[in-house]
Every structure is written in structure tokens, then in C-alpha cells.
């Protein structure tokens, strides 16, 4: 046994030495790489700028002023797409520090092709990019991480194409340097349109995946789980507890599960640098799903139409609201999507006997149509013997107040409804000249111009 320990120690020592050697080597590699890129950028600048011939021996000690472009050989195009799109993992050092770096790198390649006035190269590149992103999204169509990553980067690329298009409407917030960097020879607005459609596609795929994960938790969490024991209500067990169990006491979903899952989605989206406006739209869509699914259950199940359930629902809605506040998402319109549900819950709790009650109901339930109101009233189940059922005369009374209603008369809400997604223009303050290509992306064949 001692022999073994000695051997292990010996191997560990060797290992340590190897690590040191390796580190030295990568340092040397990095230095060489920097030299190469510096020299090649010098070369390309020399080509363009005739004035430099006056100072042949002077190589500036400071880094060359870069133009913010990336050059690649035509035959490396496939490799470029492979390494920056197809094989790129959403989790890695470079993309964790700068999530939208791939988009910028791609744009800098586009800029160079435009700069060279090379029609074929540019077209080929744009098409390859679009195809590449389509493929990678298809390959990972169930993975929230990959989908958010590529949605974020596609959106960023779209923004870059707009910001540097040279079009007046997009130049308002650009710095003078950025204005100089605009595309000079080609108009890529058609490609922008294709890219925009692709982004919409990815967005909807992302929403579908998130909804699929969320759906099983909605009805149990919002309706069935009873966190209110009598009067005292238990605050759900927080959102980011380390030892949190997904299931509360009886191994079923609770409101905490829903909140937890929302947090997971939200953090995935923000980790990948998704623009806030897009994240907000996604959250709003998810909240709509929660509201509509829960509401439909109330329409269908008599056992859910009780005063206690009404209270439970309102409690859960307040937790959802709190979650929005904690994540600074109050302005996304998510809470509005819950209004039909909130009003239904209120209706369950409120007194339903006098004429004034009837009037109040008719006035307050703005988000509910008469069919839905009547259904709730008729399904209302008293929790004990003291409570009376809702009388049919009361129902008729309410209906009389709603005679002038002219709107949809569907009982159920459409849970598949999707709000239209928009991609507002967001200029970035990033200076393209200052961007470098980290070595872990395996793009050594790109030359920084």
C-alpha cells in the first residue's frame, strides 16, 4: 500500500510539473498569436494607408489602431460557421463573460466582406449564418439554454445590422466612430428581414419549451395546493434556497414550484444577455399561460368554485406579483394578463345575495363575459352548510345588469394564444475596434483588422 501512495504522490508531482509546462507553453502561444495578429493587421493597414511608407522602420509600441473588422479566407468560411455557431456551447468562459460576443464577431466578419466590396463573399456569409443558426436551433430545440443563447445573439446581430446600416433612423445614438464603421457598399435590409423572421421562430420555440415545462405545475400549484391553513398563510419557501425541495409536503406542485421554475427561466434568459424587452415579453406570455390555464379549470370544475379557493388564488396571484417586483419586471404587462383570473377569484369570494352585490359584480368583472360570470355563479359550491348556494334569481339579476354586453361569449380562454413578439431596435455602445477574439473559441484563422 505504501508503494501505491508513493506512486500516486510521484504522479501528482509529475502532474504539477506538466501543468506548469503547459501554462508556460500557452503563454508562449498567446504571445505568438498576438504577434501574428499584430503583424497581419499591420500588413493590411500598410496596404490601405500609403502614408505609412514614410516611416518604414517605425513599428509602434502601442497596439495598432484597429478598424473593428475580422478577416477570413473564403475557404475558412465553413470552419467559421462550424466553430462560432454549430459547435459553440452556450456555456463557456468567453460567452459567459460576454454573452453576445458571437453576434459581434459575425458582424465584424460581415463588415469586412462589405469593406472588400465582395458581393459573393458577403452573400455567402449571410446565408451560411442564417442556415447555421437555423440548424443549431433545430438541434437543440428543447433546450432552454441554447434557445435563449441563440435568440439573444440573433437579436444582437439584427441590432448590429441596423445600427451600422447607415440608415438615418438607426444612427441617432451612435458615436462618431460608430458612424464611421457603417457598412459602405451593401444594403442588407433583406437579410435583416430573414434574420428577423428567424428570431421570431426561435422566440416561439423558446416559449413552447418553457410552457411545456411549466404546464404540469400550473393547476396543482395555483389551484389544488392549499397553502392557506385556515387564516394563517404560509409564505412559500423562497426562490433561490439551496436545499429547497421542489415538492412541499405531499409531493405535489405548489406555488413555490411555479415561482422556482419562472426564476430558472428568467435567469437562463438574462445569463445569455437577452435584451430586457424580449425577456419581458416572454415573461408576459408565461404569465398569460398561468392565468388562462387556471381560469379554464375554474370554468370546468365545480369543486374549484368556492370561497376558499378564491382566497387561495388571490394569494397566489400576490406571490406572482411579488416575484415580478423582485426581478424588476413590473412594467412588462404580465400582471394584466392575470386579470380575468383575479376577477374570477374575487367573484368567488364576494357576497352574492343582494341587488347591490349583483350590480357590483356586473361593474367590477370587466374582464369576464356574461357566460363566464354565470358559469361561476352557477358552479359556486358553498364550503359548509351555513352558506347558501347562489340563487337563480340572483343570477338573473346579474344577467340583467349585463344585457348590454357586446363581446366574445366564449367560456374558455385560449391558452395557445401568443402575443405578437417585437424586436425593438437597441443600439449598443460597444466599440468594435476594441473587440478581441478569445482563443477558446478556436477562431485563430480570423485576423483582426
Amino acid at each position, binding site marked *: *500500500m505504501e508503494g*501505491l501512495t508513493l*506512486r*500516486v504522490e510521484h*504522479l*501528482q508531482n509529475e*502532474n504539477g510539473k506538466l*501543468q506548469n509546462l*503547459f*501554462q508556460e507553453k*500557452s503563454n508562449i502561444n*498567446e504571445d505568438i498569436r498576438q504577434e501574428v495578429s499584430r503583424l497581419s493587421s499591420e500588413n493590411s493597414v500598410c496596404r490601405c494607408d500609403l502614408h505609412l511608407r514614410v516611416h518604414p522602420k517605425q513599428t509602434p509600441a502601442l497596439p495598432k489602431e484597429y478598424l473593428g473588422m475580422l478577416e477570413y479566407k473564403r475557404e475558412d468560411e465553413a470552419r467559421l460557421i462550424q466553430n462560432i455557431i454549430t459547435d459553440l456551447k452556450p*456555456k*463557456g*468562459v*468567453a460567452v*459567459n*463573460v*460576454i*454573452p453576445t460576443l458571437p453576434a459581434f464577431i459575425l458582424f465584424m466578419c460581415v463588415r469586412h466582406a462589405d469593406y472588400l466590396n465582395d458581393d459573393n463573399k458577403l452573400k455567402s456569409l449571410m446565408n451560411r449564418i442564417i442556415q447555421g443558426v437555423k440548424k443549431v436551433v433545430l438541434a437543440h430545440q428543447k*433546450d*432552454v*439554454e441554447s434557445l435563449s443563447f441563440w435568440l439573444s445573439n440573433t437579436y444582437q446581430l439584427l441590432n448590429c445590422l441596423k445600427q451600422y446600416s447607415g440608415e438615418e433612423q438607426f444612427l441617432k445614438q451612435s*458615436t462618431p466612430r460608430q458612424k464611421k464603421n457603417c457598412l459602405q457598399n451593401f444594403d442588407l435590409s433583406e437579410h435583416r428581414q430573414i434574420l428577423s423572421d428567424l428570431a421570431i421562430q426561435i422566440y416561439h420555440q423558446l416559449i413552447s419549451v418553457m410552457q411545456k*415545462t411549466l404546464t404540469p*405545475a400550473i393547476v396543482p400549484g395555483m389551484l389544488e395546493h392549499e397553502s392557506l391553513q385556515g387564516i394563517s398563510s404560509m409564505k412559500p419557501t423562497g426562490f*433561490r434556497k*439551496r436545499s*429547497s425541495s*421542489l415538492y412541499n409536503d405531499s409531493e405535489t406542485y405548489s406555488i413555490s*414550484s411555479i415561482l*422556482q*421554475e419562472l*426564476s*430558472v427561466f428568467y*435567469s*437562463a434568459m438574462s*445569463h445569455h444577455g437577452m435584451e430586457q424587452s424580449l425577456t419581458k415579453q416572454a415573461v408576459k406570455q408565461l404569465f398569460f399561460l398561468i392565468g388562462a390555464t387556471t381560469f379554464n379549470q375554474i370554468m370546468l370544475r365545480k369543486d374549484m368554485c368556492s370561497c376558499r379557493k378564491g382566497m387561495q388564488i388571490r394569494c397566489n396571484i400576490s406571490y406572482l406579483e411579488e416575484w415580478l417586483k423582485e426581478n424588476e419586471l413590473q412594467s412588462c404587462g404580465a400582471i394584466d394578463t392575470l386579470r380575468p383570473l383575479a376577477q374570477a377569484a374575487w367573484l368567488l369570494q364576494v357576497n352574492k345575495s343582494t341587488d347591490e352585490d349583483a350590480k357590483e359584480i356586473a361593474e367590477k368583472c370587466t374582464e369576464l363575459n356574461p357566460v363566464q360570470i354565470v358559469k361561476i355563479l352557477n358552479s359556486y359550491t358553498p364550503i359548509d352548510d351555513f352558506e347558501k348556494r347562489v340563487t337563480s334569481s340572483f343570477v338573473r339579476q346579474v344577467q340583467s345588469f349585463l344585457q348590454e354586453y357586446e363581446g366574445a361569449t366564449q367560456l374558455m380562454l385560449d391558452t395557445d394564444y401568443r402575443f405578437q413578439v417585437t424586436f425593438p431596435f437597441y443600439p*449598443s*455602445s*460597444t*466599440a468594435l*475596434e*476594441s*473587440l*478581441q477574439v*478569445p*482563443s*477558446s473559441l478556436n477562431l485563430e484563422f480570423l485576423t483582426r483588422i
Partner: protein
Amino acid sequence: MEFGEESSPALAFEKNAFELTVEDVYDISYVIGRDLLKISSTGEEVSDLQFRIVRVLEMFETLVNKYNLSVEELKMERDNLKAELDRIIREGSSSSGQTGQQTVGANQLVVDLNDPNRPRFTMQELKEVLQERNQLKAQLMVAQEELQLYKSGILPQSEPTMVDVDLSTPPATEDSSSTVNEKTTIGKLFSFRRK
């Protein structure tokens, strides 16, 4: 992502260096990235710093990966060697179980007592047997010569007693009194064998 999985990226900063995983390095990268975003205003000044940090983190990722792999490999090797050692010890103890503890040293031989071809005789015994055989062979030659002479009538003596000495077959078949009385080494040895 599984339902309800959470991660607190900042936790990675509190871990022991030797317990870091590559995932932790990614979490660290993310947190640092966010912090950098907070301080960057024009996008130029922070950029160099940003990419240097990326470079360092890349090296860090490589080292953490290598380290964890090496640890795994060393562990596996250690386990293999341990298993082999156990096996050898077990085998060693099972085969020497009949004669008790027997450590085989250098220049020693372990003999299976049930092997019919096992070595049984000492050098001395072998020497004596061979000497006797040579002697008897010589005597046989002389006796045969004598016989020839008698047969051809040269030596007119009465017939000598025939002595069958067949050294190739065991003396168990012989009933001549001469060999029974002879206490030769051969007889002794071979009489043991009959038992």
C-alpha cells in the same frame, strides 16, 4: 434544464480551489462579466481589461479541467493497483492453505504432492543407484561371456545357476531368492514404491 434546478453562480467564489469544477469556472466568468458591464461606460477602456480577464479565465478553465481529469485518472489507477494487489494476496493465501503459511523465498520450489512426476530422490540416492547399475551391468557382461564360452565348449564346467537380472522391470516380478536377500539401494527404493 430539469424542473426546478437552481444555481447560485456566486457560490463558486467561495469554494475551495481544489474542489472547483469547470461549471464553477463558467459561473465565475458569468459573474465577472456582469460586474464588468456595470463599470463599462464607453466600451473602449474596459475592453482590454475584459479580454485579458477572458484570457485568464480560459487558462483557468483549462487547468481546472486538467486537474480534475488527472485526479480521476490517478484515482482509477490507484484503485486498479489496489484491486490487483488484493487479488494476488487472495490467490497466494488460497494455494498455500494446506501446508499452512508458506512464503516462497528465492531459490525455492513449491511442489504439488499429487503430481506423479514430482521430484522424489536426492542426488546421493541417484548416484548410488547409478553406481550399482553400472556394477551389475559389468557383472552381466562377464556372466554372458562365460556362458558363451561354456556353450561353445571351451570351458567344460557344470551349468551355472541362471540368474535373471532384468533391471528394466521392477523386481516385483522376480521370485528368485538372490534379489530378495540383496539389500541394495535399488531394492530398498523400489520396495518403498510397491507400497
